[in-house]
């Protein structure tokens, strides 16, 4: 992960064999493939715009890699059928790519890459082109596919929360260099450079303890204070161990601010907060607040800031939905 212009896509394309590096080597499973052409590397690329072949049907797109490998037609039918059932795109097989929605295109691109059973699958911002509601389901799809097929995925993103949620290991890139590699928690709690901190420092990250459940939600206590928040039920794939201790992340853009207590909101978490600081972040502002000893960070637009007339020391209401809380588990 890293900011745009960091060289993430270029690195991905170099691994795929589209570019030959002037120095260094590319090794896949211990084999030096630096001078191999892309077709000899056993990597599958899912580019940012999915690059479905527009002149071929969905079926022909998915079967393309099998046909180049000389797989027999009955086996092609069988394998395409299996993968498209798994990705729930069986009903699209006869369609042309231009008639598909963004989410459908993404599934077809994933099916096309997965059906050849590559050693490595290269995902270039696979959720960037999707609208926010689809992003979440796309992430859980990726997670379950990964759990089932066990491929190695190199997933490029500029979204720190996506990286934390999906990755076993994160390489942080900036300016064409990898600045830090490590497990998500290591990157979050121990950023080794100011560039990494800039990315990780603005998300709301807490350690928390599960203390109970209430009306379909679970109740968490954020440490070190005892601020209680309501979170959506824990997804099944997370192994929490027996301690009940977890890490939680809340995106600053998911926290809404108002001067008066919100009357009509579906948000389960509403708190009174004291504004500590306002930081200029170009088109938006980062509002740093204190809620019972817990630091809460939120983005608001310039216009919203002018409307609300917030200044340090003011009291505001900060609220967010139960589903905004991402539970990461303890690793």
């Amino acid at each position, binding site marked *: 992960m890293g900011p745009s212009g960091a060289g993430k896509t270029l690195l991905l394309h170099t691994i795929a*064999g*589209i570019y030959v590096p002037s120095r260094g080597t590319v090794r896949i499973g211990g084999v030096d493939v630096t001078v191999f*052409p*892309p077709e000899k590397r056993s990597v599958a690329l899912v*580019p940012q715009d999915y*690059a479905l072949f*527009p002149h071929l049907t969905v079926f022909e797109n998915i079967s393309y*890699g099998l046909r*180049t*490998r000389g797989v027999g037609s009955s086996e092609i039918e069988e394998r395409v059928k299996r993968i498209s059932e798994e990705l729930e795109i069986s009903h699209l097989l006869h369609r042309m790519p231009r008639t598909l929605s963004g989410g459908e295109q993404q599934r077809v691109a994933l099916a096309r890459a997965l059906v050849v059973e590559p050693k490595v699958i290269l995902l270039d911002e696979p959720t960037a082109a999707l609208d926010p509601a689809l992003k979440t389901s796309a992430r859980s799809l990726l997670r379950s596919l990964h759990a089932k097929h066990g491929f190695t995925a190199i997933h490029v993103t500029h979204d720190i929360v996506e990286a934390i949620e999906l990755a076993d290991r994160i390489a942080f890139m900036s300016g064409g260099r990898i600045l830090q590699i490590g497990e998500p928690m290591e990157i979050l709690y121990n950023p080794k450079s100011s560039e990494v901190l800039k990315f990780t420092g603005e998300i709301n990250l807490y350690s928390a303890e599960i203390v109970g459940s209430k009306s379909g939600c679970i109740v968490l206590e954020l440490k070190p204070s005892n601020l209680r928040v309501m979170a959506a039920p824990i997804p099944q794939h997370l192994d929490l161990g027996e301690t009940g201790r977890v890490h939680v992340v809340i995106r600053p853009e998911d926290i809404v601010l108002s001067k008066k207590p919100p009357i009509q909101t579906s948000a389960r978490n509403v708190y009174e907060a004291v504004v500590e600081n306002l930081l200029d972040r170009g088109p938006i502002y980062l509002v740093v607040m204190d809620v019972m000893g817990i630091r809460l960070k939120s983005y608001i637009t310039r216009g919203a800031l002018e409307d609300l007339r917030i200044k340090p020391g003011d009291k505001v209401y900060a609220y967010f939905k139960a589903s905004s809380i991402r539970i990461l588990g303890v690793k």
Partner: protein
Amino acid sequence: MLFILIPLIVLHIATNYFLTYKLVQAEIVLRAFITTFTAASASTIILAILGIPLSYILARREFRGKSIVESIIDIPLVIPHAVVGILILVAYSSRTSIGNILSNLGLIVEDNFWGIVFVMVYVSAPLLVDSVKDGFKSVDPMLEYVARTLGAGPYRTFFTISLPMAWRSVVTGIILSWARAVSEVGALLIVAYYPKTINILIIEWFNTFGLEYAKSLTVPLLVICIVLFACIRYLSRRA
């Protein structure tokens, strides 16, 4: 617009179709049509075989001297037709050293079928290469990269992805260069008056028998050209 349309309508009204019908059955006319169309088709096939790969390279690769190559390809667009005739004759006629080698291979230029083909290739090359090159440029290179990672080699990628996606431009380029080849006359007057192509026959009959005969001969040629034009419009609109 009317300036262009009026002659087409007037020709249609003024033509003696009975004469046209009789003329197209005359052996000399039939042979001129066959010579024109086979030479134009031969030149287009040669151009397609050499020009499509060249167009692909020009669309995809960056190399030193690329703009020089592109300029050279476009030179025939700006050279007067009579000059093209002289150029072909000076370079490839059997009295020159290159022409000597060619004529040993049976490719005699002056007053020969292959002379006609040479002229046609020369004048229509830029139309094919430019059109096909634009077609390949409009294909997203990422599609080719994805095909490669899915196990397709460079040739398979070219024939299953690049060429089918650019086919409209390829067909347009082929029709344009064929039509350009059929329409050539200036350079042919100099290089290969014989075997007579249809344009040369029109000029000859205009000079010897007058407008009435020349007119009747132009109608079938005009019809063929307009049908081709309609094909191009249809294809490019669908693209």
